[in-house]
């Protein structure tokens, strides 16, 4: 695929060991290990899932697995995954944006900003079992905030309808890695808003609201939306945190795929492949959306 690869690079770069001009370049050999690895451990397994979702257990072609995605319990799993991902993307996105705003334009001192960025780096990578456990110790039945509510207000939040092992509880837990990711991505974007734009609009008599409505927001919008889509994908693909927190109580798509793989329920790996395929398609659409929107922003924020 890259035999002519060298033609655009300068001739002097071909090195001392290759005298004279050549038509055939061996430069592509240098990236061969990478392509072999990606082929073997990323593309081939993905292709296996793709093929598997069009096969029955005997290996014959079928569309039954895709039709199986329309079963009520599977549809509910997709709906729940999409709801949780959308809710935490929106919530985490808004909160993360406000935080990023606070440390960039909001006028907080520099050390606060670097603290927040470091915090965000840690929190966006803190997931899975430890995160689930942190929330159980905080909002679980014997958790510390639950206890505070009991002693201070004489209220049991579990009697009031709260449950950590529910939609709300899982969303609160996901938020822990969602909003920091938003902070990490939005801070540079907000830095890119030029002071001159604000000054120019103020000189022309614009109010703060008008500045945001007509200048800052339109510039930031693609980045805002794009990052929220990224957060959506981030939550959609999450398995470890949900598994550790609810132990498979909430039927998210990832949890259902896991159950199919382990053979807990009606072992049907081919339906599992179709589930995974549907998941990859939703992820692909969201990541493509993110990339496209991010590119729209880059024209302005450089």
């Amino acid at each position, binding site marked *: 695929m890259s035999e002519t*690869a060298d033609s*655009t*690079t300068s001739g002097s*770069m071909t*090195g001392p060991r290759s005298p004279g001009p050549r038509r055939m370049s061996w*430069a592509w050999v*240098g*990236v061969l*290990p*990478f392509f072999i690895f*990606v082929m*073997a*451990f*990323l593309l*081939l*397994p*993905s292709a*296996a*899932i793709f093929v598997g979702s069009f096969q029955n257990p005997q290996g014959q072609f079928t569309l039954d697995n895709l039709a199986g995605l329309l079963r009520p319990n599977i549809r509910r799993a997709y709906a729940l995954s999409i709801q949780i991902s959308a809710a935490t993307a929106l919530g985490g996105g808004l*909160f993360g944006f406000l*935080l990023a*705003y*606070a440390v960039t334009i*909001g*006028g*907080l001192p520099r050390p*606060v900003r670097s603290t927040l*960025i470091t*915090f*965000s*780096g840690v929190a*966006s*990578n803190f997931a*899975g*079992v*430890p995160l689930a*456990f*942190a929330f159980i*110790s*905080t909002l679980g039945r014997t958790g510390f*905030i639950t206890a505070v509510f009991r002693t201070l207000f004489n209220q049991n939040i579990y009697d009031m309808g709260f449950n950590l092992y529910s939609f709300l509880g899982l969303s609160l837990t*996901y*938020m822990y*890695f969602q909003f920091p990711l938003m902070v*990490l991505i939005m801070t*540079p974007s907000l830095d890119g808003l030029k002071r001159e734009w604000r000054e120019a609009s103020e000189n022309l008599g614009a109010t703060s609201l008008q500045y945001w409505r007509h200048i800052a927001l339109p510039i930031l919008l693609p980045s805002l939306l794009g990052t929220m889509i990224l957060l959506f994908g*981030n939550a959609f*693909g999450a*398995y*470890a945190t949900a*598994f550790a927190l609810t132990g498979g109580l909430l039927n998210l798509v*990832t949890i259902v*795929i896991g159950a199919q*793989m*382990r053979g807990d329920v009606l072992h049907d790996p081919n339906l599992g*492949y179709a589930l*995974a395929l549907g*998941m*990859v398609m939703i*992820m692909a659409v969201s990541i493509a959306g993110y990339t496209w929107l991010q590119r729209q922003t880059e024209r302005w924020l450089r």
Partner: protein
Amino acid sequence: MKRFAIWSWLWFALGALYFLLPLYGTLDFSLRMQRGTLSLLAYQKALADPQFIRSFTFSVQMAVLTIIVGLLLIVPTAYWVHLRLPELRPVVEFLTLLPFVIPAIVLVFGLIRTYGRPVTILSVTIMPPLTNTTLGANSLLIAGYVVLSMPYLYRAVDNGLRAMDVRTLTEAAQSLGAGWPTIVARVIFPNLRAALLSGALLTFAIVVGELTIANFLARPAFAPYLALLSNSRAYEPAALSIVSFALTWAAMGIIDLLTRGAPGVLGGAGH
């Protein structure tokens, strides 16, 4: 500006609370193993458990191997693409971003389907099922981890390469008579040190806490052990959560120090 700052402080305070309360809850819980007094008993018990030591050592070994394989794979590729094959850059970039599209649970599903049976070409078996042997399963685990960390590692290395003038440095070294090993070892590598180290630390943080792939390949790693432990124990998992948080914190703190002012390489994985 004053009114602004009040709101800003409010958001920041809320963020700090969200961040710290669960940590405080876990820390508090982990210290209460002995009734009526705060103690480090849970930590002593958790850290002394031979199964913890075994699983944690295993995860650290896997992390180190992942870092080595990942760096050997990514650094030469990124360097070569910068230097000689710039038109391949979009392809390589796309491939390194693919793991974002393919969640860990889907990846491990695909790996098991592909390598959980004999690999055959034209009905000739060239490889027995990898999942049947310890060595095979561990290799598969490392391969999966390399895939998971690829987006971060590639981005870190790519940022590092962008920040220096690869071409001029390489030409200068060549005109001084340096061969490729010398160029890579004594010119490129030292300039990439910060980028490589931060990529490696991020990989370490991801791998040591990773549950999904290790779980389905049935490897005795730290996260599956922690998940299992939390079914039967209360205080020890809290202590280990704090330990694992401290590790993540240490890794991120060092990355932060290394990459001050450079575009960030941080970002979530392994949820």
